[in-house]
């Protein structure tokens, strides 16, 4: 395997991951910073840790969907008139072009302040490559339709879940005559639900993936562990809430509501971290999916159906995201912190739980969904439950428009880059592939 070409690829993946960190990550912590639960600095550190953990522990699950699910590599191989090693070489060029175009599009979007999804960018780019390289038929349109549908389903599901969770909080706590007293009773259940979502996702998918050899980590055991952790955190939360709100039932309503919000501050931190974790898990595939494919081709010289994602590639992706967060995302986060927002911790928790659960479920179903848009859907859901004092529908429309434009835009950029790459680099890459086969 040529170290130089792999280094170039790694740089591309890193560039993409950097863009994700610069553009997207601030969104995952938006609720925590927006409700004043975390300072900007704390949020950057927390997001960095959670994104990295999510990327490395859970990341690999969606990787092959993007590579193999959208474009069928065998369609490339069965094209007439292909030289030996040419399909593999085309795939290398195509994946590089996809990475670069998605990253460039993202960078452009960040620069112009357009809210685009990293997931949408890479999916569009890979599809663009498939259309030009192997014809429209090579794109798995069934799979593509499923993915596109999930972009609409995931905000809807996130919105519905957020609506229900907030309605429960609103009806059982905020709408009670003594919100402080009600919060003592109800909050532990919400903590239980939150803990279940986070721990199940982390253990069942995360550690199982890293610690493959451990046999006793069966579904039942996983469930038991999640249950144990959830019960412990439920008890802790119960004690904490009781200590904070125990004798506050007779205070004026406004003060009680304020105290309840205070109790939800630690929860919104945890739930925002969960969003960052889910985001890392979901979006790292955008940067390392194509990279894994290329690394495998250059290593073996063949195009395989299943590509193992080496840990170092996931670490690279996670590192890139953290780097983007630390160098540029910091600034985005700072504007988040200084802007007055009208989201309170109870709303933040509801939105975060809904978004995390939706993204993790979609990741599990191997559907690459956009974290940002799921969170937007969740926020809209809370707005519909009359939980937010105002949602800017113009921004919501802007998000929706960028939704529609991203896939074709990334596809077009990718097509151009691929054609250039094929014209200039095909022979060079083919020799690399052939050399790998001999070795």
């Amino acid at each position, binding site marked *: 395997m040529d170290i130089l070409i792999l280094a170039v690829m790694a740089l591309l993946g890193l560039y993409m991951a950097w863009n994700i960190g610069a553009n997207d990550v601030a969104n995952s912590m938006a609720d925590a910073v927006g409700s004043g639960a975390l300072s900007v600095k704390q949020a950057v550190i927390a997001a960095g840790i959670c994104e990295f953990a999510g990327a490395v522990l859970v990341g690999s699950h969606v990787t092959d969907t993007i590579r193999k699910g959208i474009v069928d590599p065998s369609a490339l191989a069965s094209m007439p008139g292909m030289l030996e090693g040419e399909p593999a070489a085309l795939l290398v060029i195509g994946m590089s072009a996809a990475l670069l175009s998605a990253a460039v599009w993202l960078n452009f979007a960040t620069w112009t302040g357009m809210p685009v999804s990293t997931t949408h960018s890479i999916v569009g780019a890979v599809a663009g490559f498939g259309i030009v390289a192997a014809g429209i038929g090579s794109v798995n349109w069934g799979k593509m339709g499923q993915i596109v549908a999930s972009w609409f389903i995931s905000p809807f599901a996130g919105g519905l879940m957020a609506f229900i969770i907030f309605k429960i909080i609103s009806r059982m706590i*905020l709408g009670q005559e003594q919100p402080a007293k009600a919060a003592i009773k109800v909050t532990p259940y919400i903590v239980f639900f939150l803990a279940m979502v986070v721990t199940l996702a982390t253990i069942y998918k995360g550690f199982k993936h890293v610690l493959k050899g451990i046999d006793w980590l069966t579904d039942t055991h996983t469930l038991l562990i999640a249950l144990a952790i959830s019960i412990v955190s439920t008890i802790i939360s119960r004690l904490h809430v009781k200590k904070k709100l125990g004798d506050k039932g007779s205070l004026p*309503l406004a003060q009680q509501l304020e105290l309840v919000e205070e109790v939800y501050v630690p929860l919104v931190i945890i739930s925002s971290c969960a969003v960052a974790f889910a985001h890392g898990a979901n979006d790292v595939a955008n940067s390392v999916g194509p990279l894994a494919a290329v690394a495998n081709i250059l290593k073996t010289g063949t195009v395989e159906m299943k590509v193992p994602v080496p840990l170092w590639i996931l670490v690279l992706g996670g590192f890139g995201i953290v780097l983007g967060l630390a160098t540029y995302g910091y600034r985005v*986060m700072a*504007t988040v912190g200084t802007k007055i927002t009208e989201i309170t911790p109870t709303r933040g928790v509801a939105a975060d739980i809904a978004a995390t659960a939706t993204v993790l479920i979609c990741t599990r179903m191997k559907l690459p969904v956009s974290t*940002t848009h799921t969170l937007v859907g969740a926020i809209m859901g809370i707005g519909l439950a009359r939980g937010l*004092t105002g949602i800017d529908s113009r921004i*919501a429309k802007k998000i929706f428009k960028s939704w529609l434009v991203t896939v074709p835009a990334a596809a077009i950029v990718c097509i151009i880059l691929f054609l250039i790459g094929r014209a200039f680099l095909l022979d060079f890459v083919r020799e690399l592939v052939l050399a790998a086969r001999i070795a």
Partner: protein
Amino acid sequence: MNIIQELFGKSPFGPLVEHTKKVHECVEMIRPLMEALVNENYDEIRRLQDQVSRLEYEADTIKHNVREHLPRRYFMPVERVDLERFISSQDNIADKAEDFAVILTLRKTKLHPEVMDKFFEFVDQIFQVTGTLLTAAVELSNLAEASFSGAEAKVVLNLLKGLNEEEWKADRMARSLSKDVYALEKQLDPITIIFYEKMILTLGSIANEAENAGDMLRTMILK
């Protein structure tokens, strides 16, 4: 830059509560005005009228501030129409309070001893009506926090029921006071009677607008 943060509009409810409070400050000036009238202290009336005008102007400033929080593109937990009608009703209350002060400056009128007590009772009743509205409307921030439902909504709806009753009382008092005024037609010159009638009508319209604002508040909650 950060799109999710941009998604959140500023809350109109905080400034709205400010507006309610400022409007009520205008209404609070009516009693001192009446006292100055009884004492025939017309300089004091002029001074108080200046003060009401300034308060009314401040309320207007807050009103514009609230409107700035309500661009058409905002998706809100209450109907925009109801909220806007609520603001304009409150705005009218402040306007009418200012009108009342202005009326008193127009002419050096004396308050006839026969109607004096009833006049003050009527003023107190008006104050009762707007005070109930104030108590209900300052809960708007809490209502938003409790997403316009549950116990808090019930409390405010009950207050509003009380508001309707108080307004009805004010109406009856206005009628009875008018009768008393006309009963004095032999002792008073017609201009003074017109003047009293003007005062009663203006005060009555304050109670009316307070009721309208209360009705809008109710529709907002019951959306």
